[in-house]
């Protein structure tokens, strides 16, 4: 998977690069509009992460260029400008998703996965993880080829974990992923635990191992081994 990161802030760019490389992506970076423009004209990417506010131009023009070139690449806009206009304009121009800054890296990963899944896996649209097979199109989960009935939230939770294997997912990131802006009103995240407990139970009942480990004080982690 080849991803281009267009971001002018050095610390954020390096963090994203490190994070995505660790996640198995082949990454390239661009720190200016000009550089990004050159790269999208020269090379093919599976997905382009675009920051809208660049020192020498507006990231929206990169989206326009990609669309004008009929590029296959998915487009994920990351921006600190959360003006609704930018969001609407970005999506209308053909961006696949819009993630306002600051974001959780896990959330970025989940959105990136979703875009790539929609764009790349033509035909074989399923995810396999140890004893699990997930068909995101049908929201179908199989454990040892047996279907599991999950609630919407349990399913979202599982997909979020599958997008971020071997990473500690903080309760805050999980809460925001599932409950959006409402997450900040929670005094405690006990109900995440409730959903997680039910999810584990349903998977284990069909003979799956317990892959989701509690990391004390921080959150949870889906383990590959």
């Amino acid at each position, binding site marked *: 998977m080849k991803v281009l990161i267009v971001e002018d*802030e050095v*610390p*954020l760019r390096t*963090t*994203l690069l*490190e*994070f995505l490389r660790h996640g198995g992506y082949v990454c390239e970076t661009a720190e200016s509009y000009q550089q990004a423009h050159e790269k999208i004209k020269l090379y093919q990417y599976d997905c382009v992460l675009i920051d809208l*506010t660049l020192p020498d131009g507006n990231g929206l023009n990169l989206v326009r260029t990609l669309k004008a070139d009929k590029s296959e690449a998915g487009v994920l806009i990351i921006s*600190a*400008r*959360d*003006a*609704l206009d930018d969001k609407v304009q970005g999506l209308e121009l053909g961006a696949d998703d819009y993630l*306002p*800054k*600051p*974001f*959780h*890296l*896990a959330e970025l990963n989940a959105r990136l996965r979703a875009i790539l899944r929609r764009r790349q896996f033509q035909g074989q649209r399923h995810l396999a993880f140890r004893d699990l097979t997930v068909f995101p199109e049908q929201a179908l989960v199989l454990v040892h080829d047996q279907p599991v009935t999950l609630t919407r*939230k349990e399913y979202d939770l599982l997909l979020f974990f599958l997008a971020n294997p071997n*990473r*500690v997912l*903080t309760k*805050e*990131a999980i809460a925001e992923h599932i*409950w959006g*802006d*409402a997450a*900040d*009103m*929670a*005094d*405690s995240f*006990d*109900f995440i635990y409730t*959903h997680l407990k039910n999810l584990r139970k349903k998977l284990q009942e069909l003979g799956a191992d317990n892959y989701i480990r509690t990391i*004390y*004080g*921080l*959150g949870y982690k889906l383990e590959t081994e």
Partner: protein
Amino acid sequence: MKLLTTTNRYYLALATVLFVLGTGVLYVGMQKILADEVDEQLELHQSYVSKRIQETRALPPITDPTELTLSRKPHRTGLGDTVLFDPVERSSVPFRELTFPVTVQGQPYWITLRKSLIETEDVLEVVLTVMLVVMGLLFSSLVLLNRWLSRWLWAPFQQTLGVLRGYQLQQPQSLALPPTPIDEFSELNQAVTQLTQRVAADYRALKEFTENAAHETQTPLAIMQAKLEQLMQLPELPETAAESVHDLYRAALRLSRLHQALTLLSKIENRQFTDAAPLRLDELVADKLAQLQDFLEAKEIEPQLLLTAPLAVVMHPSLADSLVSNLLQNAIKHNLQKGGLQVTVTANTLDVVNTGPPLSGDPMQLLGRFRKHNAASDSPGLGLSIVQQICTHYGFRLRYTFAAPESLHTLHVEFR
């Protein structure tokens, strides 16, 4: 009152005063001139009669007793006024008379010459009528002229007014006012154009500032959050450090949310949400309540939703979302364990009633920024300020009341 009516009123008052004064002066003047003329004629007549008497040594013949009378009794001599019955006119008529003594054949006589004033009254009548007609014509033509002028001359003013009414700060194009040959209006148009340009520039600067401030703050926060998240992934991170890192991460999140809320508030204040769409708030309330199910369950709250009528409003969708979310989240967040929550929606009101900690003082105070009941609470106390700002923006009325006996907090929104 219309400008035209006001000026016309003053015109009418002035014209009436001038007319009355003018008529009075004219009347007195005419009367004096006419009286002088009659006196002159009488004196002329006197000299003529006197001459005749001297030549003929006989009394003049009395042809018209009203015009000339003879008396042997002494009379007051000189000019005077009198009223006599005129058999021709069949009414009492004012006369001017001149009496003088003569001696004919050693006998003293007093001759009185009279002249009727009735013709002079007729003249005055004509004068008054002419004045009245002229004034009437003058005034009605003035009113008509003013009407016409106001329609044609004031047209640029009405146009300016119309353009200003339709002017929206958020629109990029500046005010387009048609040129006018009238200096006052072109000056007004110029001043208005300059004003709107200045206001638009200020507005753009403010908007840009808000956006830049958002960007400049969100970017370092994004870096902090991403770096801290990466730190937490390190397997070799000692448990003691992990706790600190997690605390920092939570603080960064809190700061970011606070910042988002403040940015939203200033955007509402700057009126940056202009696209309104018709919405069903009752449906939104039901949806939001379902989304908040987990939070309700965590507090063991059984919400009661009463939808008596569809509540249709015209609002910016994200502001409607923000209004409803903040009201419901506030009611859940500051509720008691196993507390109560009742949401009532009618055709133009929304009531959110929840149990909560007892409150002292004016609950409306809690609508201010950073005002919260429990000072130690994690929430920045901006939720209700956002609700209030949205209500102010759309002209909705928001009321926060607290009923002590059951410790019930009520937020009541009236949509016009």
